[in-house]
C-alpha cells in the first residue's frame, strides 16, 4: 500500500457563514498561493476538531461528531467537478488507517470548490471545514 509524500501543502478552509443549512454550498476561502496555473494538486486530508481544534486563521474546526454530515466537491481549472461530493470522513487520515487520499493530479479552482452539509446537527455557524491540500509546482523537484 502506498501513501502520499508531501512536497508542498496548504491549509484551506470553508466557513459555515450566515446560517447552517442542508445542501447550501459553502465556498473555500481564496488562497492566492493555490491560484497559480503551474500548481498541481495530488492529495487531500481533512481535519476535525480532534486533529486541529482551531485553524491558523483562528476559526473553530467542525467537531469530530459532525464530520459524517459533510461532503466536499473539488473543481478543476476547466470547472469540471473532479471530485464530487466526497464524504468528509473519508478524507480524515487518522480515521482511515493513516492513509492520505490521493487523486489524479489536476489544477485546482479553489474558489469554485465547496462543502455541503447533509445534516445540521452539531454544526455551528462560523465553524470551518479545514483541509490540507497537497500539491507540487510543475518543474520543481
Amino acid at each position, binding site marked *: 500500500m502506498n*501513501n502520499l509524500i*508531501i512536497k508542498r501543502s496548504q*491549509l484551506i478552509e470553508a466557513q459555515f457563514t450566515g446560517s447552517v443549512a442542508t445542501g447550501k454550498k459553502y465556498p473555500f476561502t481564496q488562497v492566492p498561493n493555490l491560484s497559480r496555473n503551474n500548481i498541481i494538486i495530488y492529495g487531500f486530508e481533512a481535519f476535525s476538531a480532534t*486533529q*486541529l481544534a*482551531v485553524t*491558523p486563521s483562528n476559526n473553530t474546526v467542525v467537531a469530530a461528531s459532525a464530520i459524517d454530515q459533510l461532503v466536499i466537491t473539488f473543481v478543476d481549472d476547466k470547472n469540471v467537478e473532479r471530485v464530487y461530493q466526497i464524504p468528509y470522513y473519508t478524507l480524515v487520515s*487518522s480515521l482511515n488507517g493513516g492513509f492520505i487520499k490521493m487523486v489524479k*493530479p489536476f489544477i485546482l479552482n479553489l474558489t469554485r470548490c465547496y462543502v455541503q452539509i447533509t445534516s445540521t446537527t452539531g454544526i455551528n455557524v462560523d465553524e470551518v471545514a479545514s483541509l*490540507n491540500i497537497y500539491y507540487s509546482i510543475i518543474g520543481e523537484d
Partner: protein
Amino acid sequence: MPRIISPILNYFLANDMAKDYTDVQGEMSALVRLTPPTLAGYQEPMYFDSQTMLDGENATITGIELVNQTELSHSPNGEVTMDSVLFPYGVLFISDIKNQIIAELPLTSLQRTTNNGKLLFTNFNTQLWANCYVEFTQAPFSSPTIPLLFNVYYIPKQKN
C-alpha cells in the same frame, strides 16, 4: 509473476508523490527539540534553532514525526515533554530561505500513534530549518516552556 502497476500509480511513484508505507523512511534521523520561549503566547511563531544539516542545501527531509509523551516521556535533557492534549492547537510551518511557506502541517498529523503507525512522508528540498516554526492557535497553550520533540528523517545531499 510480474506486478501490474496502473499508469497513475506509476506517475506517483516516478515523481516522488507516493511510496509504500513500509518503505525506507530516510537514511538518517535527528531528534529535534523545540522549546517555546518563556513568554510565548498563542498565534506567535516559535522558531527552531538553526540546524544546517537539515537545510535544503544539505538534506532532503523525507519524514517528520512528532514524538509524544507516550513514546518518550522525557527529552534527552531530562525535561518532561509537552502534553499531547495541546497538539490539536498546533501547526508546524516549513519555510524556505525567503520565508515562503512550503508546508503547513497540523501537529496531530505528525503523530504516528494517531495515524495507525504511519509516518508522514515528505520530500522537502528547499527548506531553511531556522525559518521553520510551530504556531499554537488557541488559548489552551499558556507558555509552558516544555519542549516539543520531532524526529526528522532525512537524506544528506552529496557535495562536490
